[in-house]
């Protein structure tokens, strides 16, 4: 079991970009948008059996006709300026039952992804996901960049709307990247390959809900566009972001005034946070999350649950 190649294209000095499901599906939406826009073709997949439980069964006339597993697929694109390998996983192999990869299976899968990167001599690897931030959903999401080598910091500091962990209030340059997005950075470093995780911001109050957050995905795509020196068609992601914001605003209007007022304080905090003491304390954040949770579980907003 392992990697199965459908075709083995000749690629020059490619870059690999990888994404899995996570909060707001930010990385996944970004990469899927890129894959569609580039019309990238499938080149390989990872056999699922070792890593995943089946996701779907189809029975017709009493006969089991299909058992489908989560996919982990590699795509390629030969570009004018840059050849790309895209890796899109439908699930993270989580032995602990959560959504994020952990344990031996996660390590094994991350190594398989790296095997493809090494085989094609990828010069850099990007992973993408979500950064939970004290921002309002009407604000522009920033992209947080975490490289696996200090030598990459200057490059990412130079990109528009991009911050490092040390730019985030209260973090002091420290943090944690859960699941395969983080694991891949570590394994790439062990193999001597540059890797960077690009995370689009998602409002803290949406982190526990199953809403996609394409605004965060757009921020990821903006950084990739700059880093790869490549034009990316944003039309589709912009439309998704518009729909998402309109849906969230509709939901927001249904919130009790007290919760709305708390959320409104976040409209100013994102800008202020990078420069001074945050307007939202940890206590405020906790209260917002508790109130949101209470509202969605007990008081209403049922259609979104």
């Amino acid at each position, binding site marked *: 079991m392992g990697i199965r190649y459908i075709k083995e294209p000749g690629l020059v000095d490619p870059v690999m970009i990888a994404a899995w499901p996570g909060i707001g599906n930010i990385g996944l939406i970004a990469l899927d948008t890129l894959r569609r826009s580039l019309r990238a073709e499938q080149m390989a997949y990872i056999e699922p059996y070792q890593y995943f*439980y*089946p*996701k*779907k069964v189809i029975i017709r*006339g*009493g*006969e*089991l006709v299909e058992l489908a597993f989560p996919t982990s697929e590699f795509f390629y694109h030969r570009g004018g300026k840059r050849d790309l390998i895209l890796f899109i996983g439908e699930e993270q192999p989580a032995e602990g039952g959560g959504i994020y990869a952990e344990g031996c*299976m996660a390590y094994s899968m991350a190594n398989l992804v790296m095997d493809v990167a090494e085989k094609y001599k990828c010069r850099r690897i990007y992973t993408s996901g979500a950064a939970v931030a004290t921002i309002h959903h009407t604000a522009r999401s920033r992209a947080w960049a975490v490289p696996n080598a200090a030598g990459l910091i200057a490059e990412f500091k130079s990109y528009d709307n991009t911050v490092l962990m040390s730019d985030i209030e209260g973090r002091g340059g420290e943090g944690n990247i859960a699941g395969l997005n983080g694991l891949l950075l570590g394994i790439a470093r062990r193999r001597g390959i540059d890797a960077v995780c690009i995370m689009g911001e998602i409002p803290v109050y949406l982190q526990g809900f199953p809403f996609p957050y394409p605004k965060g995905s757009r921020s990821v795509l903006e950084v990739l566009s700059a880093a790869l020196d490549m034009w990316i068609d944003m039309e589709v992601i912009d439309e998704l972001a518009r729909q998402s914001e309109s849906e969230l605003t509709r939901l927001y209007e249904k919130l009790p005034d007290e919760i709305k007022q708390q959320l409104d304080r976040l409209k100013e905090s994102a800008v202020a946070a990078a420069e001074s003491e945050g307007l939202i304390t940890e206590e405020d954040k906790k209260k917002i999350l508790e109130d949101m949770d209470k509202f969605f579980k007990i008081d209403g907003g049922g259609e979104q649950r």
Partner: protein
Amino acid sequence: MSGEPTVNQGGIHGLKGGVLVVAWAEDAGGLGMRTADYLIQSLGCRELAEIPPEGFFPMGGVNVVDDVARFPESRLYISDRSNIVIFKSSVPRMGWHHFLTSLLDIAEQDCGVREIYTLGAMISSAAHTVPRLLISIVNNREIKAALEPYNVLADNDYESPPGQKPTLSSYLSWLAGQRGIPAVNLWVPVPYYLVPIDDPRSVKRMVYFFNSKYNLGMDFTALDAVIAEQNNRITQLFEKSPEIKNMVRRLEVGDGLDGEDSEKLAREIAEALK
């Protein structure tokens, strides 16, 4: 490290054309396990092999059920007087593919298994007095045809909705199909108010199927006695409570109960059968 199956000394006896019957713990009403236990006892089965838990279950302590500490168990039993092989197991929490292929390896290579049946219960809103249906999901058309003489329903259409994963029995059936082994997932709808207790009628329906199909010459006396005892206790409850009797009558004619009545019926039946 994942556990490899261990076979008891002198266990294998050159079985050919074996039939594997698989029961999972945590099944609604314990139907699969109760059916497997009845078959094991009636056929005088002995333990043949086990799949050790490491690699398939989180080793973070034990669960306590009915005051007793339980540890995951996955054991294979064989009968010297029939070609039935029975596998009783806790539902693995990880390493499913390895677990199921280990089972298929030992079943196919060491026990000559050529057909597989899994046992399971569906929760039903029908009354306990209604005859039990036997529903099958098969992995090939030939075995579907072979079930026709046994009054087994085999025409379901189903597509698991997003987020709802297939059953482990479906997974086993699919893997068996990859090896060309016919497999059948058998399901009996169990009245919801008997799910937390026991439904001997459903057990009998399952056992009756195997007895008919494989000429096992089984004795149903003990099972019939359990059914009669349950009937008797429910009849006594009806005599004491016409309201409960009326609720069951409504289920018999297909009238659903509202939430409050449903809960009351389940509570009263549980009390009566305690």
